[in-house]
């Protein structure tokens, strides 16, 4: 390993939690919950131009069992809310949620009977992304904000103690 050369006979010290969180934040595998038009921008975010792999998030997992962060991208109806919650429940802990776009964060322009007025009514959201739809840059911005939270050991979902020392925090909003 290159580290041997750089350090020689000396060594590094850190806390296990910090080391693990450093690993976690650099391989946040998203669950792409692309429900409507924001999903197009989410694909651009993962694609070569905006390139989420620079932040270790290029592996969009279509299986909730293998993902760490749920990207809810699109208008969530009451009928779909049950599905979103079910998929969130299937994700292993610790897990984070990014609410992408105006509809997901607040219902957006759909102030109507069929649309949930913000997914925070049934999910703990870590990062809100402003925009309709948000530019892929802003989604990258949200991912970086989330990385900062992960490094600090913050998670708004429930995490059992044997997984690590997590504490809850206030959600943040990504704006450009």
């Amino acid at each position, binding site marked *: 390993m290159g580290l041997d050369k750089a350090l020689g006979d000396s060594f590094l010290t850190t806390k296990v939690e910090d080391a693990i969180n450093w690993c976690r934040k650099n391989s946040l595998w998203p669950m792409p919950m692309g429900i409507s038009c924001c999903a197009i921008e989410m694909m651009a975010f993962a694609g070569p131009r905006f390139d989420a792999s620079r932040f270790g998030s290029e592996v969009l997992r279509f299986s909730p069992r293998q993902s760490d962060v749920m990207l809810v991208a699109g208008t969530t109806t*009451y*009928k779909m809310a049950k599905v979103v*919650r*079910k998929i969130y429940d299937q994700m292993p802990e610790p897990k984070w949620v990014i609410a992408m776009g105006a509809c997901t964060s607040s219902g957006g322009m759909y*102030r*109507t*009977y069929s649309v949930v007025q913000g997914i925070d*009514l*049934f999910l*703990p959201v870590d990062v809100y992304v402003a925009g309709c739809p948000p530019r892929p840059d802003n989604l990258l911005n949200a991912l970086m904000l989330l990385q900062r939270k992960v490094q600090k050991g913050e998670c708004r979902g429930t995490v059992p103690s044997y997984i690590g020392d997590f504490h809850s925090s206030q959600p943040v909003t990504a704006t450009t």
Partner: protein
Amino acid sequence: MDNQTVLERLKTRFADAFVESREFRGELTVVVPKDRIVEVCSFLKNDADLAYEFLSDLCGIDMYTPEKRFGVIYNLLSLKNRHRLRIKTFVEEENPKVQTITGIWGTANAHERETYDMFGIIFVGHPDLRRMYMPDDFEYHPLRKDFPLMGIPGSLPLPKK
């Protein structure tokens, strides 16, 4: 084929089942009583000259009037004659039932389910009259005029946080 010819054919064939007709910007609309709708549609499709073989849309309407509150609108297209025709029929609020036309145009199956979901109009004889958009246990019909825009609180449960 022009509107006048179609109207004459319908008037002679269904002299007793003709309510009214109107023409707006070249589009002909014919209102028929609800108990004759299957007969009228069947004639329009199977007649060799008229040949309305394509049901381009079927939808509902809530007039919000004390009488004849709900309506069903059938938009027909004759590919052969390149002619469009609109048929309307109205039902009472207490008994919103219309005979299904799935036996004539198969595509009416989905359209009638949607109309049932949104307006609560029951299509008698429909093979599979389930809700289409709203959850199966939902009790209301959202496109009715007396349904509030933001819905009825508690009628659509959210998963627990």
